[in-house]
C-alpha cells in the first residue's frame, strides 16, 4: 500500500466509518432506539471527521491529497486508490452534514410494514460510504464499480421503504442509472486500451489516464466522451433523460429523497468536472454547445414543469432538474468563475434543496401523508414557524441574495456570460420562473384561507398563549376519521433545520472559505483542460502549475 501526503488515515476513516456504522446498526436493528442512536452517532462522527479532513486540506497544495492506494487486480492494473481534491472534499463534507440531518428528520417516520429503523438507517450509512468512495476514487475502474454499486442500497431504500408505486420507481431508477453505467464501462475500457497502446501497459489510474487520453485525436475523444457523458447526464439528470427523478423522488421516503437529489445526483456533475473536462478537452470543447443547449433547456423546462406539478415531491424533482441545468451551464461555459459557481452550486443545492425537501416532508407528515398540493392551504396560520422555514428554503432555491444559492447562481451566470452570452441570457430569464414556482408553492400551501383535504379547516382552537409553539388546528385522519392536532415545529425538527438555515445565511454572506477551497481545484481543472479565463485581471489570475 502506498500513501502520499498527510492525513491518509482521515480519508480511510471517512470511508470506513459509515461502513462499520452500517454493520453495527444492522446488528442492532432489533432495538429501534439503540439502532437509531447508533446511526446518529456514526453519522455525526463521520461529519466531524469530514471537518477535520477539511482542516487538514491545503487548498494551495497538491491537486490530490490524503491519498492511499493498494493493488486490487494487478493483471489489469486496477488499484483501490482514493484521494480528495477541493471539489471532492466539499462534497464529502456536505454528505457528512446531510446524513445526520436525514437521520434526525426520519427519526419518527412511519416505515412500511415489517421494516425496521435499523435496516433503513444502515442502508443510508452504506449509501454514504459508497458515495464518499465515488467522490474520492482515483482509479477509473474503481470509480465505475462504486458508481454502479451505489445504486444497490438506493434501489432498496426506494423499493423497500418508499410510497405506493415504489417498485416501479426503484426499477426505473435502477435501469436508467445502470444503462448509463454500462455505456460508461465501454468508455472506461476504451481509455484502458488507449493507455495500453500508448504506454505498453494498460492502466486505470486517473492521473495517468488524464495524461494519455488528453492527447488522443478528436474523433476518439468524442466517442469516449459520449460514453461518460451519457452516464453522468442520466445521473445529474439533464433533460431529456430526467424522467426517472420525479418518479424516484415522489416515491422515495423524504430522507432518501434528500440523499438522492442532494448527493447521488451530484455524482453526475462531479463526473463532468473530474472526468470529462480533463480527460477529453478536445471533445469537451467540440461538444460544449450540445451540453449548453441541454443545460439551458433543463433550466427553462424544469422550471416550467415545476410550476405545472400537482404533487409536492414531483415539484421538488423538477426544481432540481432546473438547478442541474445551471450547474451544467457553469461547467461547460469554460471560465473559472462559472466553474467555481457550479461547484458551489452543487453544495448549495444540497443544502437549500435538501432543506426544502425536509420541510416539505414536515408539511406532508402533518397532512396525513398526502403530497398533493391541492390538499393544503393556509397552513401559515396553524404553523407559522413551518411557513417561515419553508419560505427560507424556498428563497434560497430562488437564489435570493443573502442566501447561499445566490452566490453560486451569480457566479455561474456572470462567469458564463462572456463565453456563452445567449445561453446565459436564457438561463437568467429562468430566474423569473424560479421565483414563480417557489412563491406559487408557498402561496398554495401556506397562504390564503385554511383549506384542503389534508387540513380540514377550522380556526386555531387555542390562542397564542398555549404551551405549543404555534396554534392548534384539527386534522381529520382520512382512514380513521379521528381528529388530531396539527402542531408547529417540534424541538427535533428545529434542531434538524437550524444548521441548514445557519449555512444558508452564513454561506450567503461569507462564502469565502468554500470558494477558497474550491477555486484551486477548479483552476487545476481549467488548466488540465487547456482552458483560459475569458475575463482576466492583472493582479488576480488563474494560476496554472
Amino acid at each position, binding site marked *: 500500500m502506498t500513501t502520499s501526503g498527510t492525513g491518509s488515515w482521515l480519508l480511510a476513516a471517512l470511508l470506513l466509518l459509515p461502513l462499520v456504522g452500517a454493520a453495527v446498526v444492522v446488528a442492532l436493528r432489533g432495538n429501534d432506539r439503540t439502532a437509531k442512536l447508533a446511526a446518529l452517532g456514526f453519522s455525526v462522527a463521520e461529519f466531524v471527521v469530514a471537518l477535520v479532513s477539511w482542516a487538514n486540506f491545503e487548498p494551495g497544495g497538491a491537486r490530490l491529497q490524503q491519498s492511499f492506494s493498494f493493488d486490487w487486480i494487478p493483471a489489469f492494473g486496477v488499484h483501490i486508490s482514493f484521494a480528495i481534491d477541493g471539489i471532492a472534499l466539499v462534497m464529502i463534507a456536505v454528505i457528512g452534514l446531510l446524513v445526520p440531518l436525514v437521520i434526525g428528520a426520519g427519526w419518527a417516520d412511519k416505515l412500511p410494514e415489517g421494516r425496521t429503523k435499523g435496516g433503513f438507517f444502515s442502508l443510508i450509512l452504506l449509501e454514504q460510504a459508497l458515495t464518499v468512495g465515488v467522490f474520492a476514487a482515483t482509479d477509473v475502474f474503481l470509480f465505475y464499480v462504486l458508481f454502479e454499486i451505489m445504486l444497490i442500497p438506493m434501489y432498496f431504500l426506494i423499493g423497500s421503504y418508499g410510497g405506493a408505486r415504489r417498485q416501479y420507481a426503484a426499477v*426505473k431508477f435502477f*435501469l436508467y442509472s445502470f444503462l448509463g453505467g454500462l455505456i460508461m464501462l465501454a468508455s472506461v475500457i476504451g481509455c484502458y486500451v488507449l493507455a495500453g497502446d500508448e504506454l505498453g501497459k494498460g492502466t486505470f489510474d486517473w492521473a495517468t489516464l488524464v495524461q494519455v487520453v488528453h492527447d488522443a485525436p478528436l474523433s476518439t475523444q468524442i466517442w469516449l466522451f459520449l460514453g461518460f457523458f451519457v452516464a453522468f447526464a442520466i445521473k445529474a439528470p439533464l433533460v*431529456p433523460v*430526467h*424522467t426517472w427523478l420525479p418518479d424516484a423522488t415522489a416515491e422515495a421516503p423524504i430522507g432518501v429523497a434528500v440523499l438522492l437529489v442532494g448527493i447521488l445526483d451530484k455524482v453526475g456533475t462531479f463526473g463532468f468536472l473530474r472526468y470529462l473536462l480533463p480527460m477529453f478537452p478536445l471533445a469537451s470543447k467540440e461538444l460544449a454547445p450540445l451540453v449548453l443547449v441541454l443545460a439551458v433547456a433543463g433550466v427553462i*423546462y424544469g422550471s*416550467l*414543469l415545476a410550476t*405545472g*406539478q400537482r404533487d409536492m415531491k414531483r415539484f421538488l424533482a423538477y426544481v432540481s432538474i432546473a438547478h442541474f441545468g445551471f450547474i451544467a451551464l457553469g461547467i461547460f461555459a469554460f471560465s*473559472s*468563475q462559472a466553474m467555481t*459557481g457550479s461547484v458551489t452550486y452543487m453544495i448549495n443545492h444540497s443544502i437549500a434543496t435538501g432543506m426544502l425537501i425536509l420541510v416539505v416532508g414536515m408539511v406532508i407528515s402533518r397532512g396525513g401523508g398526502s403530497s398533493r398540493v391541492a390538499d393544503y392551504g393556509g397552513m*401559515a*396560520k396553524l404553523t407559522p*414557524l413551518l411557513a*417561515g422555514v419553508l419560505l427560507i428554503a424556498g428563497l434560497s432555491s430562488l437564489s*435570493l*441574495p*443573502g442566501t447561499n444559492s445566490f*452566490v453560486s447562481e*451569480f*457566479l455561474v*451566470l*456572470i*462567469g458564463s*456570460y*462572456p463565453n456563452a*452570452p445567449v445561453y446565459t*441570457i436564457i438561463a*437568467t*430569464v429562468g*430566474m*423569473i420562473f424560479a*421565483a*414563480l414556482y417557489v*412563491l*406559487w408553492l408557498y*402561496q398554495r400551501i*401556506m*397562504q*390564503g*384561507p385554511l383549506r384542503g383535504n389534508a387540513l380540514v379547516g377550522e380556526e386555531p382552537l387555542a390562542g*397564542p398563549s398555549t404551551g405549543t*409553539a404555534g396554534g392548534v388546528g384539527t386534522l381529520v385522519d382520512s382512514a380513521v376519521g379521528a381528529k388530531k392536532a396539527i402542531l408547529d415545529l417540534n424541538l427535533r425538527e428545529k434542531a434538524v433545520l437550524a444548521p441548514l438555515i445557519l449555512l444558508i445565511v452564513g454561506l450567503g*454572506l*461569507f*462564502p*469565502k472559505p468554500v*470558494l477558497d477551497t474550491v*477555486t484551486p481545484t477548479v*483552476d487545476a481543472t481549467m488548466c488540465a483542460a487547456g482552458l483560459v*479565463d*475569458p*475575463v*482576466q*485581471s492583472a493582479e*488576480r*489570475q*488563474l494560476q496554472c502549475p
Partner: protein
Amino acid sequence: MTGTMNLAAEVQQASGVASMAWLLLVLPAFGAAVLLIGGKRTDKWGHLLGSATVIAAFVYGVVLFLDTKSLGAEDRLRDVHLFDWIPVNALDVEFGLRVDPLSLTFVLLITGVGSLIHIYSIGYMSDDRNRRRFFAYLNLFVAAMLLLVLGNGFVTLYFGWEGVGLASYLLIGWYQDKDFAATAAKKAFLMNRVGDVGLALAIFIMFKTMGSTQYDVVFAQIGNQSTATVVSIGILLLLGACGKSGQFPLQAWLPDAMAGPTPVSALIHAATMVTAGVYLIARSSPLYSLPQAEDARLVVMIVGAVTLLIGCVIGCAYDDFKKVLAYSTVSQIGYMILAVGLGPAGYAFGILHLLTHGFFKAGLFLGAGSVMHGMNDEGNIRRLGGLARKMPITFVTWTLGYLALIGFPFLSGYFSKDAIIAAAFSEGGGRGWVFGGIALLGAGLTAFYMTRLLILVFLGKPRWENLKSEDGRAYHPHESGWTMTLPMIVLAVGSVGAGAILSGILPEWLTPSIGELVEEHGPLSHTLIAVLTVAISAIGAATAFVVFGRREQPVTRPARVSFPVRAARADLYGNHLNEALFARPGVWLTRFLVFVDNRGVDGLVNGIAAGLGGSSGRLRRLQTGFVRSYALSMLGGSILVIAALLMVRFA
C-alpha cells in the same frame, strides 16, 4: 460629467466616524434578527426595539452627514471596505459601502421617514397579534434598503435590491390569509424579478467588458466602452429601475401592492423602495452622462414621460383611496425618471423631487391610513366624505401634503416638480416641447385627481352615515392617537418646507456624486414655466371642484361611463395585456409541457420498456413445443449457414 468622472477616481478609504458605516446596516438587521429568532418572547417590547434600532440608525446617519459635510467637496466620496464577498480569480465582488453625498441623502431619507413610520406603526398595528413580526419585516426592509443605497458596487446594490423586494413581498402579503394579498405579493415579487433580470444582465456585461462590478472601476472605465455596450447597460439598468419603481411597462404591481398595511404603502411603496430606480440611474450618472449613452437616456425619458401620463390618467378614475395614491406615486416617479433621464441637467432635480415626494407622499399615505383606521378600514372614497371635521389633524396634514403634491406655490412640490418641468423644456428642440408638454399636462391631471380625492374624502356630505362596513359595523370616525398623528405632523412640516430648503443646497451637496448641475435655458423662461405650471394645476383643481364639488356623488360608482374612464378603470388594460401576453400563454405552455413530459419524454422511455416486453412476448410464441418445428428451424438455419459459407467461398 467630467467632474464626476474625475471625482469617481478619487474615492478614498473612509476613516473615523465613516469607517463605522456598517452600523447603519447592522442596527436594523440586528433588530430584525432578534425579533424573528426571539419569537413570541419579544412580543411585549418588539415594536420598541424595532423603532429604536431605526432611530439609532437615523441618529448615526445624521452624525455621518455632519461629518461628511465638514469635509471639502473633493473628499466627500469615501469607501468602507468590509470583506471580500465573492472572490474568484479575476472576479472580486467586495462587500463594501460607499459613503458619499448621494448615499447619505438616501440614508437620511430612509432612516428618517423609516423612524416616523415605525412610530406610526406602533399605533396603527396595535390590534395586530403579530405586530412584533411586522416590525421585524420593517427592520429587514430598512436594512436591505440601506444596503441598496450604501453598497459600493452593483452586486451589493443588487443584494439590497432583492432584499427590499423580499421585505416588500412579506409586507404586501401581510394579511396572508387573504388570497388577494398573497397574490398581490407574488405579483410584486415576480414583476420585480423581471426588472432584476435586467439589472443582473447589466452586471454580467460590466464584468465581461470591464472585469469588475465595483462602482469605482466601472465608472472609471465606462467611458472607454463602445456605444453598444454603454447603451445596452443603460437600457438594462433602466429595466431594473422599471421593475422596482413601477415604471411602464412594469407598473401593474404597485397598485396591487396596496393590499399591505398602510405604513408599508407609505414607507416602501411611496417614499423609499419604489424610488430605488431613480437612485440606480442617478448612481449610474457617469454612464448616463456619456455622449454614447444618448439613446439610453432618450429611452429613460420616454419611459418616465409615458409612465407619468399613465399614472395620472388612471389615478383620475380609481375609487380606492390608496390605489389612487399608488398611481399618483407611479406618476410622480415617472417625473423623477424623466428628470434623471435628462442627464446632468436633471439628476439633482430628480433627487430633489424624490426627497420632497418622500415627505408629502408618505404623509398622504399616513393620512389615508389614519382615515381608514378610523373608518373600519374602508378604502372606497365613494363611501367616505365630510371627514374634515371628524379628523381635524389628519385633514390639515393631509391637505398640506396635497398642496405640496400639486405644486402650490412655495410648498415642496412647487420647487421640485416645476424644476423638472423647466428642465424638460430646456432639453430644447422637439424633444423639449414634447417632454415639457407632457410634464405640464401631468401637473394639471395631478391637480385634478388629487383635488377629487380631497373633495370625496374630506369635504362634501358624510356619505358613510347611513352605511355599514363589510363586517357589519357602523362607522364611527375618530382622530387617531398621538403615535399616528405625530409622524403625520412632522411629514406635513417637511412637505411645506423641505422644497424651499433643499432646492438651495441639494445640487451643490450632490455634486461630488452625480456631477455638477448643468443649467440650460430652453425656449421658455423659468418664470414663465412656473407661472404656466401653477396656472395649469389651478385649472385642474378648479375642474375637479366643478365636477365633484358641486354635486352629490353616488355611493356606488356609475357603471355607464365613457370609454376613457372605462379604460382608466381597467388600468389602461395593462393587466389585461400582461394576462393575455404572458400569464395565459404561460399556463397553456406549462400544461402542454407537463403533458409532453408525462406522455412524450417519459412515454418514450416507458414505451421502449413496453416495446421490449411486448416483442419478447411475441417471440416467445415461436416456442410451440413441437419437436418437429424446432427440427425444421434447425434445418433451415443450417441451410442458411451453409449457403452463407458457400457464398463467401465462391463469391
